[in-house]
C-alpha cells in the first residue's frame, strides 16, 4: 500500500526544523513529509516534542530554523515559516488540539461556521446592508456547516452549546470545524485521547472517510492500536529527534523505538 502511494506528490515537506525554548532543544533538525492521500502517524513518548512540532507547523510558535513547505495539489510550494496561523490555515492546512479548544459558548453549528471564515468574504458593510451576495454566502455557510456536522455524526447537536456536548462529540466537532476551512492537509493532535474503544473505532472510520475525500492526514496519537492500523507511514520522535521512520511493521520491530518507549539499561543507569 505504501509502495504505490510513495509515488504521489508531497503535500508537506519539512526540512531540518529546529525549535528551542531557552536551553531546551524541543526539536532538532526534524525532517518529515506527507504525500497526497497519505495518513502519517507521529508518535513518541511524552515530552518528545510532538505537539511542539504541530505548533511550529501551524505558526503558533515560529521555528528557529528549517524550512516548512506546503505544496497545494498542482500548485507551487509555499514556505510557511513566519506566516501567521490564520494565513497558514488559508493556505490549506488545518488542525485540531490535544486539549479540546472549542468555542465553548457557541453552538456546535456556529463552531463550524467560524471555520468557514477564511473561505468567505462578507465585511462590516456586507453585514450591515446584508445584500444578496452576503445572504447567499451566509446560506452557503450554514448549509456547508450543517453537512459537515452531519458527516461527523453530530446532526442531533446542531443548536447545542459546544460545552454541553459529550466528550467524544467534542473531539468530532473539532475535526468538523477544522474541515470547514477546506484543508488538503489535516493535522490531528491526539484525537482519540480519552475515548472509549467504541468511540475510537468510530473515529478511525471517520479518519478513513476524510482520507478518501482527498485530504492527507498527519496524526499524533498515543493509542498504538489505532496508529498502527490506520497509518501508511509512522515517524517516531524522542527528545526532539527523529529516531525512526517507516511502515507500521518496521516501527513495531525497531530497537530504538522500543528503547525510547520502554527505556534501556544504559538509560536507566
Amino acid at each position, binding site marked *: 500500500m505504501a509502495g504505490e502511494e510513495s509515488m504521489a506528490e508531497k503535500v508537506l515537506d519539512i526540512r531540518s526544523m529546529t525549535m528551542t525554548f531557552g536551553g531546551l532543544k524541543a526539536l532538532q533538525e526534524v525532517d518529515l513529509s506527507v504525500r497526497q492521500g497519505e495518513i502519517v502517524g507521529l508518535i513518541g513518548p511524552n515530552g518528545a516534542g510532538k505537539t511542539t512540532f504541530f505548533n511550529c507547523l501551524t505558526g503558533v510558535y515560529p521555528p528557529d530554523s528549517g524550512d516548512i513547505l506546503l505544496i497545494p495539489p498542482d500548485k507551487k510550494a509555499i514556505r510557511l515559516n513566519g506566516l501567521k*496561523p490564520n494565513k497558514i490555515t488559508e493556505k490549506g492546512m488545518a488542525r485540531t488540539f490535544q486539549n479540546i479548544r472549542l468555542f465553548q459558548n457557541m453552538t456546535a453549528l456556529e463552531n463550524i461556521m*467560524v471555520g468557514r471564515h477564511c473561505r468567505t468574504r462578507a465585511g462590516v458593510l456586507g*453585514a450591515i446592508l446584508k445584500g444578496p451576495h452576503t445572504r447567499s454566502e451566509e446560506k452557503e455557510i450554514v448549509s456547508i456547516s450543517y453537512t459537515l456536522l452531519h458527516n461527523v455524526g453530530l446532526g442531533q447537536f*446542531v443548536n447545542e452549546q459546544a460545552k454541553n456536548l459529550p466528550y467524544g462529540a467534542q473531539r468530532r466537532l473539532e475535526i468538523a470545524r477544522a474541515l470547514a476551512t477546506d484543508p488538503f492537509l489535516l493535522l490531528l493532535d491526539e484525537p482519540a485521547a480519552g475515548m472509549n474503544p467504541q468511540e475510537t473505532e468510530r473515529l478511525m472510520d471517520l479518519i478513513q472517510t476524510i482520507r478518501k475525500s482527498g485530504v492527507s492526514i498527519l496524526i499524533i496519537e498515543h493509542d498504538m492500536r489505532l496508529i498502527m492500523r490506520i497509518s501508511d507511514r509512522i515517524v517516531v520522535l524522542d527528545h526532539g529527534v527523529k529516531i525512526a521512520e517507516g511502515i507500521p511493521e518496521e516501527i513495531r520491530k525497531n530497537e530504538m523505538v522500543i528503547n525510547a518507549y520502554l527505556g534501556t539499561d544504559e538509560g536507566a543507569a
Partner: protein
Amino acid sequence: MARFSREKILSDFRQSILVSVWFMLLTFPIMVIRVNTVQKTVQWKWERMLMLGVGVFFLSYIWRYLMERKENRPKDEDKIPWNQRLLSEKKYFYPFISVVFAFSVFLPFFVSEYRVNVLITAMIYVVLGLGLNIVVGLAGLLDLGYVAFYAVGAYSYALLNLHYGINFWLALPIGALLGALFGIILGIPVLRLRGDYLAIVTLGFGEIIRLILENWGKFSKGPSGIANIPKPGIIGLEMNRSQSILFIYYLMIALVIFTIFVVERLQNSRLGRSWVALREDEIACQVMGIDRMRTKLAAFALGATWAGMMGVVFAAKTSFINPASFTFMESAMILSIVVLGGMGSILGVILGALVLILLPEELRAFSQYRMLIFGLSMVLMMVFRPQGIISNVRRSYEYHEPAAAEGD
C-alpha cells in the same frame, strides 16, 4: 432531605448568631456611642445594638435561603427563556416592538420637559452601552477608556462648529468617523495586549485624551469648555426650547432603532461570529483562519463609532461641553450598563441603561444613599445573576435537510 436535619438547624443557627455578633461589634462605634459635644456627655444606645443584631440575624437567614435556592435550582436547559421567545417568535415580537415603539413616541406628551431630558440621556446611554457591548460583550475586550471616543465625538462637533460653522447633521457622521479613526489609532498599539493589561492601558488612554483636552487650552479651550453649541434643527424651521428638546428626543429614538438594527446584524454575521470566537479562544480562533488583529480592530473601531456619534448628540443636547464630562466615572458607568444588563445581549443592555440612568433620577429622595444602593445592587447582581439581567442566548439555526445529508 437533609435540609431540616438537627445538625443543619443547629449549624445555621450558630452561623447566624456569629454573623449578627460580628456586625454588632463592627458597627459598635457608630451605632452605640453617641457623643454629645455640647453637654460633653457620652450616651450609650444599647437598644440600637440589639435591634441591629436581631435584624442581621434574620437577614442572614434570608441570605442563606437565597444562596441555597440558587445552588439547588434545577437546570432547565430545554426551556427556552422568555426573552428569547419574545424576540425569536414573530407572534410575540411584532406586538411587543410596536407597543414599545408607540409608548416611546407618545411618552413625551405625558411627562414633564425635565423627564424628557432624562429620557434623552438614558437613550444616549443605551446607544453607548450597545456600542461598548460590541467591544466588551461580543469581542471580550475589556475597554475601560471608552469615554475617550465619546469625548472625541463631542469635541469634534464643538470645534468644527466653532471654527468652521459645521452644522449638526454634517457633524454626526464626521463624529462617528472620527470615533472610528481614533478607535483604530488607539487600537493598533493597545490590542496586542490581553485581559487585565488591555484594561489598564485603555484606562490610561482614556485619561490621556481627557488630560489633553484639559491642558491644551489653545486647541480645546481647556477646563472652561466650549459653550453655545447649536442644537440640531431643520433648515427653515425655527424651534423654541421645548420643541428642540422634543426634536432631540425623536432623533434619539431614530438613532436607537438604527443602532439596534446595525448591532443585531453585526452580531449575527460572519464578523460577529468571529468576535465571539475570539472571546472564547484566541489561539483556536487564529488557527481557524481568523486574523486576530483585524477582527479586534473592527470591534474596537465599530464600538468607537457609536461613542463618537453619541458625543455629537451629547454636545448638541447640552450645548456646553468641558473635559469634566468625560471622566473615568463615565466609562465605568457605561461598563456597568453592559455588565448589569447582560453582556452580549441587546435587550439586556437596553434595560441596563434604562435602569441605571432612570432609577437614580426617580430615587432622588434617597440621593444620599445613591452610591450605596448602586454598589449594593451591583454586588447582589453579581452574586445571584452574574450573566446580567438578560443573558445572551446564541442564535439557533434551522436547516432543512436536502438530499445531501445522508453521511452518517
